[in-house]
């Protein structure tokens, strides 16, 4: 557990970067610091591993005051990931990852073997281990950065906009894998970002900071969306808060409809017969996984992938109400496709039904 108590940072020129921040980052959880530029989020993060020394207040990690610890030893016990990964350009990927274990006295051969396992864990090919960082893509470098931070298995991870410098598609992959990794590792993480969507996606709790480094609100993402404490937080959260809040509500039992389905590869005649006048029917693969909606009228000969409508999202019974509502709204037939945990089609739902489920969930809470 990391506890910041009335932490302040005033720079020699008089600017106050952090003006009395009190915050607790619980064990095994992701605490996100988010706020506009100048809110002191990075400064706050760096005060935890003493890359910046606070001018007031105290910071403890598991009850130990960091100010009393040797800075280098403190840092070796905390993984740190930064925006551009900060890999050592002159060391191979594997030696980058092995850095801290070697510093801590692990034999180089042992550290390298562990580094290989870590690379695999963050989704990198073993073949990349011997490369130099500049031979890697931005996304790959960032994965190496995460692997390097995890190398000595520190209980605490500090992450400073680790996914900001990669393109949106890669960022989303990295975020998803980060969440998967965290569910296995259960580190105590403090994560800094300026991106509120990232904060809401990744945080177990989100601390919104104001310019000048004071805490505006700290809450779980769902509570934050449901009940921002003031205009600043509300504005910072942005629009569509109600809709985004549905992302944190599990899908209850929905009244699923039967749907006319057609196996991919069927003939036009077959499809027309199955549709029996319906405009849209759902094409499934041989595992009964939905592939897309199809209009039998417009088929040339067979139900082929190119003839499928791809716009509809698919929601899982395990997913959120937001997924279910979006599936209904995005479907060309207005009927949202619902699958089970294994991705097999179980039925469809219309928007009105999802909305009444939302109302029921609200009334219950």
């Amino acid at each position: 557990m990391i506890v910041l108590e009335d932490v302040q940072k005033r720079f020699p020129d008089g600017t106050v970067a952090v003006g009395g921040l009190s915050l607790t980052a619980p064990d095994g959880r992701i605490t996100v610091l988010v706020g506009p530029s100048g809110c002191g989020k990075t400064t706050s993060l760096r005060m935890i591993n003493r890359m910046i020394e606070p001018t007031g207040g105290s910071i403890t990690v598991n009850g130990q005051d960091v100010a009393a610890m040797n800075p280098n030893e403190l840092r070796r016990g905390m993984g740190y990931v930064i925006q551009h990964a900060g890999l050592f350009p002159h060391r191979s990927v594997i030696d980058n990852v092995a850095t801290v274990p070697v510093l801590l006295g692990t034999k180089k051969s042992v550290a390298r073997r562990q580094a290989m396992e870590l690379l695999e864990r963050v989704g990198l090919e073993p073949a990349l281990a011997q490369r130099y960082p500049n031979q890697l893509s931005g996304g790959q470098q960032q994965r190496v950065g995460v692997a390097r931070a995890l190398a000595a298995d520190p209980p605490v991870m500090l992450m400073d906009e680790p996914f900001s410098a990669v393109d949106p598609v890669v960022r989303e992959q990295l975020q998803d894998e980060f969440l998967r990794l965290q569910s296995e590792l259960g580190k105590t993480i403090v994560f800094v970002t300026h991106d509120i969507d990232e904060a809401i996606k990744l945080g177990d709790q989100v601390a919104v900071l104001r310019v000048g480094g004071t805490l505006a609100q700290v809450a779980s993402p769902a509570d934050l969306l449901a009940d921002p404490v003031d205009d600043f937080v509300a504005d910072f959260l942005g629009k569509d808060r109600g809709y985004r809040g549905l992302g944190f509500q599990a899908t209850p039992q929905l009244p699923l409809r039967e749907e006319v389905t057609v196996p991919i590869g069927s003939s036009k005649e077959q499809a027309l017969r199955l549709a029996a006048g319906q405009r849209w029917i759902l094409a499934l693969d041989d595992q009964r996984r939905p592939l897309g909606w199809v209009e039998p009228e417009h088929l040339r000969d067979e139900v082929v992938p190119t003839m499928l409508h791809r716009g509809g999202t698919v929601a899982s019974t395990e997913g959120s109400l937001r997924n279910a509502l979006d599936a209904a709204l995005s479907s060309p037939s207005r009927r949202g496709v619902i699958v089970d945990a294994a991705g097999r089609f179980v039925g469809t739902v219309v928007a009105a039904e999802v909305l009444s489920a939302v109302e029921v969930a609200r009334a219950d809470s």
Partner: protein
Amino acid sequence: MTWFTGHVDEVFGLARTHLVLSMVPLLFGLLIALPLGWMARRVPRLYGPLIAGSGLLYTIPSLALFILMPLVLGTQILDPINVIVAMTIYTIALMVRTVADGLAAVPDHVTQAATSMGIGRWRRFFTVELPLAVPVIAAGLRVAAVSNVSIVSVAAIIGVAQLGSLFTDGFNRAFVDPIVVGVIACLVLAVAVDAAILLVVRLLTPWQRGGAAA
């Protein structure tokens, strides 16, 4: 060229001295410039004075410096130490800025990452900053090396024998052969030294090349 074939041993002897008189100072100069450049980089207030001051050294005429050395060091006028020290001063003059620039070229996020991993200041300097500054420092070192090979020949005038002696010799006797041989020998030496530094740099910086790493 009959002159050369008759004096091969002598020319090689002079070339060897020439090499020692230009390369030993290169090494010393580099070793002294490293902490100076580091300091210039680390203490912003010292950057200006250190860079300007060391750069100024280069403007001292070499002949004057060679003659001044015995007075400063209390050595004999013919002592090669004079030349070594003077050439070291020239190397420092060229290298302080290069070292400071080379260290400045190390990306900020890399040094910060090093700090964040608990790599202490000294270890960071030797294992991260210095290796990454090698390409820039080496570029400056190549200039200094060639400059040394060229300047050291002036020492012939104060009687320290090396390839420059071929110039004074030829000039005194109004005999062009030794001068031509001396020029060519200096050139060959300069190219060889340059190539040697380049080779060492390539060995030190495998990460600068594309392709799979060793």
